[in-house]
């Protein structure tokens, strides 16, 4: 057994691949399923032979631009994000296709077919087709790692940004992965000024666009990136399967289990865009029937334009969701006239996710809903989306949208006369990411809304990345801290309060004052910072009082605590019709105590 073979998650494999390829500038904003890529670069930065700047940027656009200038300086760089992060970075991303790069630059965009933890299942490969950016679709963690140095070389050969697109099932898979020695490239920052390129005005763009198109034609023919054929014994003549990414791997296992390995020509498409026109010609010449299998949009299928191709466009393959092995089985059985697999039982969902026991967001949401039962509650992207379980989240859209949506709700109602109390909830990391321009806009447009900034001092959903107001950068490096209060005040907000939501009486009092303020003649945006550390942070747990919480015999079984407060540590005993505390899960915070209408939830101090 080689010591260099490790059990690595796909994201860890990609992170190690970046270090080994001599990447020197790495920037990302966290987002499932991409987060562990940059985290691995941070945790393993000692492996890098040359200087390596790693940063959790404020958002994906900024991460992209930081990496871009790193590349302009001749160094290898990477920007990492999830698929919807690319929407945020779209502006610099699209122009980079024309302008190009210098040192190798990769944009790693993790897609989330399903979706598992995203607001949509958009396909970055289609985004790349629109943006004219080459995109690589790895089929396993080990393959993703192997392709990274090759992708950097391709990027440097054509001076173009290259996208690597793993999907959730690659990112969050583990596999035996071989570690290698990091490269020493010996590059010094050397930005070659060329305004006709780096500052290209419209006059220069047609030529740059022409050059891009010419390069894409050449890239499509690069020998190392051609579709890979696993030939067959021709028992299915003039028939082929074409797949990419994890779907290819699912297909390989399925063919094996059905005894069809080597019985039908099978192509793996490594680079779905740009697709080599001669591949399309080969398919048209050699095959009458082609099944195209890919996640999530028909990117290969669209480019093939094969008269005998079936896939998502033709309705033979589901157009949404993952192509899980069971679905693939049905599709393949249809295509090859095999026996259909036994119908699957209706999918059962199991336990829904909920905020952790002791989560300060729960206490905040409960108070918000209690104070404004008729309120409108725009919220945002993060753990606190789960506030919908408490009825305190009415909309969730995209990073930072809640403040502008809140302002929009106000404008729509106010022009009819009275307006409901709009309480916006936004996490601290999301506030920095995209909330600040929205807050300035809401103030300037004189929206009368309450903005509750749920400050738990971390980026909780993705596992606790640092936030700008904590004075800590990637890897624990001390840095300047940017206080939320100062930003809020500088945005022109005149009502600003801070409160720990565990103190429900004070929190509710401040919510009422905020409501009075927004309805007063001089009123505008009111901001309440709900401040309590994330309960997943062990130091937060250690620093707060833990008491034994119990439910006494006064419980009348009204279910208010289990329904309206929805803490996983509160369970309902259906036999005895009373609420119970699951002591394995209860952290003893006592935030549920005020919820009980008959004071049956009690605490006993146990030090």
């Amino acid at each position, binding site marked *: *057994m080689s010591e260099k*073979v*490790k*059990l690595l*998650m796909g994201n860890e494999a990609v992170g190690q691949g970046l270090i080994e390829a001599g990447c020197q500038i790495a920037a990302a904003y966290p987002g*499932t*399923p991409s987060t562990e890529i940059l985290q691995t670069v941070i945790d393993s930065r000692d492996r890098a032979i040359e200087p390596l700047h790693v940063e959790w940027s404020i958002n994906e656009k900024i991460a992209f631009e930081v990496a871009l200038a790193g590349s302009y300086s001749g160094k290898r760089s990477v920007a990492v994000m999830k698929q919807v992060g690319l929407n945020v970075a779209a502006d610099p991303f699209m122009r980079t296709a024309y302008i190009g790069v210098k040192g190798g630059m990769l944009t790693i965009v993790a897609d989330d077919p399903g979706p*598992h*933890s995203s607001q949509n299942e958009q396909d970055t490969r289609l985004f790349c087709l629109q943006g004219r950016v080459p995109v690589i679709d790895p*089929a*396993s963690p080990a393959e993703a790692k192997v392709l990274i140095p090759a992708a950097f070389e391709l990027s440097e050969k054509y001076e173009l940004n290259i996208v690597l697109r793993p999907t959730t*099932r690659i990112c*969050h*898979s*583990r*596999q*035996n992965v071989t570690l290698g020695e990091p490269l020493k490239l010996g590059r010094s920052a050397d930005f070659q000024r060329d305004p006709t390129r780096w500052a290209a005005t419209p006059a220069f763009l047609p030529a740059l666009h022409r050059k891009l198109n010419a390069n894409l034609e050449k890239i499509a023919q690069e020998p190392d990136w051609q579709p890979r054929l696993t030939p067959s014994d021709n028992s299915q003549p003039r028939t082929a399967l074409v797949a990419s990414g*994890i779907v*290819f*791997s*699912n297909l*390989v*296992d*399925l063919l094996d*289990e059905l005894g069809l390995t080597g019985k039908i020509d099978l192509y793996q498409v490594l680079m779905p865009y740009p697709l080599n026109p001669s591949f399309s010609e080969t398919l048209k010449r050699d095959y009458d029937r082609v099944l195209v299998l890919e996640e999530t949009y028909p990117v290969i299928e669209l480019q093939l334009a094969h008269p005998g191709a079936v896939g998502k466009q033709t309705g033979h393959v589901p157009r949404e969701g993952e192509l*899980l*092995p*069971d679905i693939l*089985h049905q599709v393949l059985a249809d295509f090859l006239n095999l026996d259909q*697999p*036994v119908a*699957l*039982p209706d999918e*059962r*969902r*199991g*336990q*829904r*996710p*909920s*905020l*952790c026991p002791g989560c300060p967001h729960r206490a905040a949401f409960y108070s918000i809903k209690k104070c404004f039962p008729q309120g409108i509650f725009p919220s945002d992207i993060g*753990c606190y*989306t*789960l506030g919908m379980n408490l009825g305190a989240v009415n909309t969730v859209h995209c990073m930072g949208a809640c403040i502008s949506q809140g302002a929009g709700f106000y404008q729509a109602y106010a022009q009819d006369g009275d307006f409901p109390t709009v309480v916006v909830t936004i996490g601290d990391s999301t506030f920095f990411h995209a909330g600040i321009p929205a807050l300035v806009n809401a103030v300037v447009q004189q929206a009368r809304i309450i903005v509750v900034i749920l400050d738990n001092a971390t980026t909780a*959903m*993705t596992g606790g990345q640092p936030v700008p107001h904590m004075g800590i950068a990637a890897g624990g490096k001390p840095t300047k801290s940017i206080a939320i209060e100062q930003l809020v005040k500088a945005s022109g907000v005149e009502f600003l309060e801070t409160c720990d939501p565990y103190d429900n009486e004070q929190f509710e009092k401040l919510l009422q004052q905020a409501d009075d303020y927004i309805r007063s003649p001089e009123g505008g945006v009111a901001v309440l910072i709900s401040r309590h550390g994330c309960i997943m942070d062990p130091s937060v747990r250690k620093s707060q009082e833990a008491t034994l919480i119990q439910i006494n015999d006064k419980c009348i079984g009204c279910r208010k605590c289990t329904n309206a407060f929805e803490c*996983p540590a509160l369970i309902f005993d259906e036999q005895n019709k009373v609420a119970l505390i699951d002591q*394995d*899960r209860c952290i003893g915070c006592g935030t549920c105590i005020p919820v009980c209408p008959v004071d049956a939830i009690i605490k006993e101090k146990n030090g």
Partner: protein
Amino acid sequence: MKQQIIVSGIGGQGVLFLTRVIAQVAVNRGIPVLTSETHGMAQRGGTVLSTIKIGNFASPLIRAGQADIGLLLWDANLPVHKGLLKENGKLFISAEQTGEGERIDAAGIARLIGNPVLSNLVLLGFAVKRQALFCTSEECEKAIRQLAPQKFVEQNLEAFKQGLNG
């Protein structure tokens, strides 16, 4: 040798750690392994599923009716994930109540050791003792030593041993 294993539970129960221990044994033995895990939103207390495929496979995902072994840390997940098991697949379940599959009150045992989350390793020991998994108890102990945080190694091994005796 090929084996397909599912690990089912809810976020926070240590499904990921249990998955890693089993996969690490394969890596230590030099055989191919692929796992798939649940991260992100669902991890917040919701139903989570890991799949582990030992041997020559390309994909980490398991089709319905293909898993050899199911390790369930949350017995309410049984109707959700049972369909992944082969007809003769073996089920090991952490539960207080009696019912389908081989059961052990892993959470109760773990609570006595001082940490209910260690029910994951109690259940692993329980399954290893019944020679259901491809791995031996020595191999599991080695993997636990490699993966557990230093100060919890002994407590982790204790949970595993209690499972072996369970």
